[in-house]
């Protein structure tokens, strides 16, 4: 994301100084997944092999994320960490240093789809306004 901001600033500068058209940088195609996403399906169903799963992903524009997950019964567990995007994938690491991804990703205004590198698992998320208070207020 920082990279994208840099490109935009550079483009603005070049435009103001009257550079030739062909010198204008191409617009970045790096994925923008910033926002809050709620897991809506895993491959085909939210009900993963008999275990109920609820996941909210809050990707911040600065490259950090917060993950809330509830596996089975009980309260939500909160994880934090950082992430980076390329034009086709997203990967990152938890605050503990443990890496995750890369996932092949597609994103539009309402949906984020993450597919594991092996292709065996596809998780689909729908965009929501914020993480519900019923989640943030129900943490371990």
């Amino acid at each position, binding site marked *: 994301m920082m990279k994208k901001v840099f490109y935009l600033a550079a483009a603005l500068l070049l435009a103001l100084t009257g550079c030739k058209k062909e010198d204008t940088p191409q617009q970045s195609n790096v994925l923008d997944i910033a926002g809050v996403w709620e*897991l809506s399906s895993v491959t*085909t169903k939210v009900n993963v*092999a008999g275990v109920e799963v609820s996941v909210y992903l809050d990707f911040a524009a600065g490259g950090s994320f917060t993950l809330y997950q509830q596996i089975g*019964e009980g309260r939500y*567990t909160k994880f934090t960490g950082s992430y980076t995007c390329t034009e086709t994938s997203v990967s990152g690491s938890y605050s503990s240093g*443990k890496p995750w991804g890369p996932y092949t990703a597609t994103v539009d205004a309402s949906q984020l789809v993450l597919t594991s590198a092996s292709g*065996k698992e596809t998780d689909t998320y729908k965009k929501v306004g914020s993480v519900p208070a019923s989640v943030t207020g129900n943490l371990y």
Partner: protein
Amino acid sequence: MKHQLISCGAILLALLSCNPESPDTTPTPNNQGNGTQTPKILKIAENNLEDAFLVKLGSVPTSEDLSALESALGTCLTPVFPSTPGKETLEHRYGLDRWFQAEVPQEEHLDKMVQKASLLEQVALVEYCAVAQKDVEGGIYEASPATKGTMSGSFNDPYLSYQWHYKNSGDRSVSPSALSGADINVWDVWTSLTCGDPGIVVAVVDEGVKYTHPDLKDNMWVNKDEIPGNGIDDDGNGYIDDVYGFNFVTNGPISWDVVDAQGNGDSGHATHCAGTIAAVNNNGTGVAGVAGGSGNGDGCRIMSCQIFSGNAGGSSSITAKAIKYAADMGASIISCSFGLRVAYASDNAYIKRQGSVEIDAIHYFEDSENANNPVLNGNIAIFSAGNETHDFCHYPGAFYDIISVSAFGPDGLPTYYTNYGPGCNISAPGGEAYHVVNKWNSMVLSTVPSELPQLGVNGEINKTGLNYGYMQGTSMACPHVSGVVALGLSYAKKLGKTFDRDDFKKMILASVNDIDQRIAKTPEKKYAYYQSALNLTPYYHQMGTGAIDAWRLMMHIEGTPTLTAKVGQKQWIDLTSIFGTASISLTYLEVEVQGSAAQSMGLQKIMPTNADKYPAVIDAGGYAYVQFGRLYIHPTLIGSGKIKITAVGGGDHLGGGDNPPGGMELVEEVSLISREADGGNGTGGWL
């Protein structure tokens, strides 16, 4: 409020008495400030012997040197440590051959003698002889008559069901806030791994252990080279009739029931600690001990190194001598449930103001080769952290390379008395009164001398003649860790494994369950007896690495990775730590819940609902399956066990034969522990 007042007092005391940066020139009761103070003098703020002090010479003296020194001082100098043939080099390395005790003649004054000694060129250090305290809260509390409990274990000891500290079922009659799993997780170790080894000896440095106790006598260490009661030092080690250990206070027989007219004196402390470490298991009598064997003579052994007797003992010279004895006579562990009430702010402050004879002896112990212990290149000292509710550990346990133990109760939370914070390395059950009215069973149950009185449930003092009773303190937490370490050494010996001593100590500190999640969720702890509550906020991340777990230590010794599951819910467990980040894409061939794991953890049958579409391998009993690189289980009980997982590395099928090229078989045995708290090492984030 009590906690806050005590903490403030401790800080004040530390500020007043322990500034390691300042020169030792402040007048104290031991030093009246007559202008002749020298840096050689090590002084303490309180509680030292008045009739003796210690000197460490700059070099090993000849007999002529010693005579000259004695003449100059006007008193005899006695070696603190008798020399042991074959260990002269180690004795010399730690200067044990240069420590002498000087008696203060009746007509002389201690401080004057100390000043005089400090002026002698040959004298490198002068120490006052500090006296330590036992880390027990109160006395012996009466145990109810043994009846068959609600739990059944591997052993037939009738009191085992009351020993929540070994397996805590969350029984509300023990504590309204009892927590399942707030224990040392030892039952599954007994069932499937080890119950002890008679070659592993634990020295209880304490009062005298009642070696005739019916639940201890078969697990007492016996010096076979000494003939009991003949008044002769048969083995020539400098100690007469040291059959089960030695009484370093009186230089006579080991004792455990010396009490004055006011009832002060021996408390049963050592006998209680000894029972926790290795009361004889499965003998149809009394309690179980952590490393007490299976009833077949295979328990670890207890050596009694008596440093307290009646109202006497506990001095640094006696303690140091007892620790050296433990090293020389083959103990692998010293279990030391005592410490100094003086608050020292750092190791340097402790050494500077308290002295170093004990530390010299402890390092000698830890570095001693031990024929009984083929597992380690040394031995391990375990100390209690102290009962002052200080936010730091007391010495000597606080010393940087010594393991010290804080205490939690049956609720899995810090006890009202335990020290915590810097210097506290690990936690264990210490018991805690006041959870239920008119019952003591939230404390720790173990062996006690029947000669001593017990406190009844209504506060009355009874001469019960009972061999078992409850006690509480970090004194009780310490022997739990000693017992677990003894089990660990027994298991490593059984497997033929060897370890570096310091690496083994790290393994001990890493063999823990989480205690902080519980603290974080419980800002205040309430008691049945009191309206005031204990503020637990200061204890967060201050109870050492966590709650000792015997099963985890055995897994570390095996080299088997351990994952943690949360009891009571269906869940998946990330296998990245087992198979790497490729775990999600591996092809799995088999998953097998082994032995008694399903029973121990109460695993419910769990089956994938979409296995036809997404590959899953399922345990033959239906207790677990692997899918998407995750292990799916549903534990309903606190417990432990092993699961074997087989996968293919480097392809989606096994290679060889007529198949197109495939991968190699990967077989990993994984240990699983189910607990109330999520250990954080097994269940990962969704991504």
